[in-house]
């Protein structure tokens, strides 16, 4: 069996860590971003570690893709399902750009969209 490429290992670990934190202890999520991180949430811009809006979520990952970038970053894309409080399950898409800064992988870009936008 072929070993997973390094970017897939790092990307998968990050995604697993991210959603575990998100669904259990959102107060720790700021540690994975830097002050310059960009996070549009459903089209609205938030910047920096303090700009996040949080609600109660439970994420289920359907598929995830990871790629290396020319600047030695990692691009990760997640497609999955999301349950918020008592609302019906919704699909979501989220993309991350990960960068190694001072020997730690942090998220510099994060884009999130609900799957409601997929239908013409």
């Amino acid at each position: 069996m072929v070993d997973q490429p390094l970017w897939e290992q790092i990307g998968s670990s990050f995604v697993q860590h991210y959603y575990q934190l998100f669904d259990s202890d959102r107060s720790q999520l700021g540690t994975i971003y830097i002050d310059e991180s960009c996070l549009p949430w459903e089209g609205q811009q938030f910047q920096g570690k303090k700009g996040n809006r949080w609600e109660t979520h439970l994420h289920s990952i359907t598929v995830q893709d990871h790629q290396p970038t020319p600047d030695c970053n990692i691009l990760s894309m997640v497609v999955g399902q999301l349950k918020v409080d008592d609302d019906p399950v919704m699909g979501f898409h989220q993309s991350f750009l990960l960068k190694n800064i001072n020997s730690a992988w942090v998220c510099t870009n994060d884009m999130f969209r609900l799957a409601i936008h997929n239908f013409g």
Partner: protein
Amino acid sequence: MAAEKEIWQKIGEGFVQEYYNQFDNTNRTTLGDLYSADACLTWEGSSFPGKAAIAGKLASLPFKSIKHIITEQDFQPTVDSCIFIMVFGQLKVFMLKHHACSWVCTNDVFRLGIHNIPA
């Protein structure tokens, strides 16, 4: 009052428009020129590394005609001066890098929206 668009949004929108124009209205043989030499494409979970592999995959897609309808698109600058793009209609993610006076695509991820439908 509407704010002027940021430069990364203008470049990103221009790229997305050109990409889907070539994709939908040509035989897709020149789509490869939008990618850098060592770009990556992930198409429904399969990897296509390098411009030649990407061009081959896109030109060989098994349909006679296609039309993309974009419902939403998001653009962000990155700390390495690249542009990060996410397109919705059919989900597509691009990364653009400035190279030799033009913007080329270095990363591309495609997934059909069928993965989103809850059971």
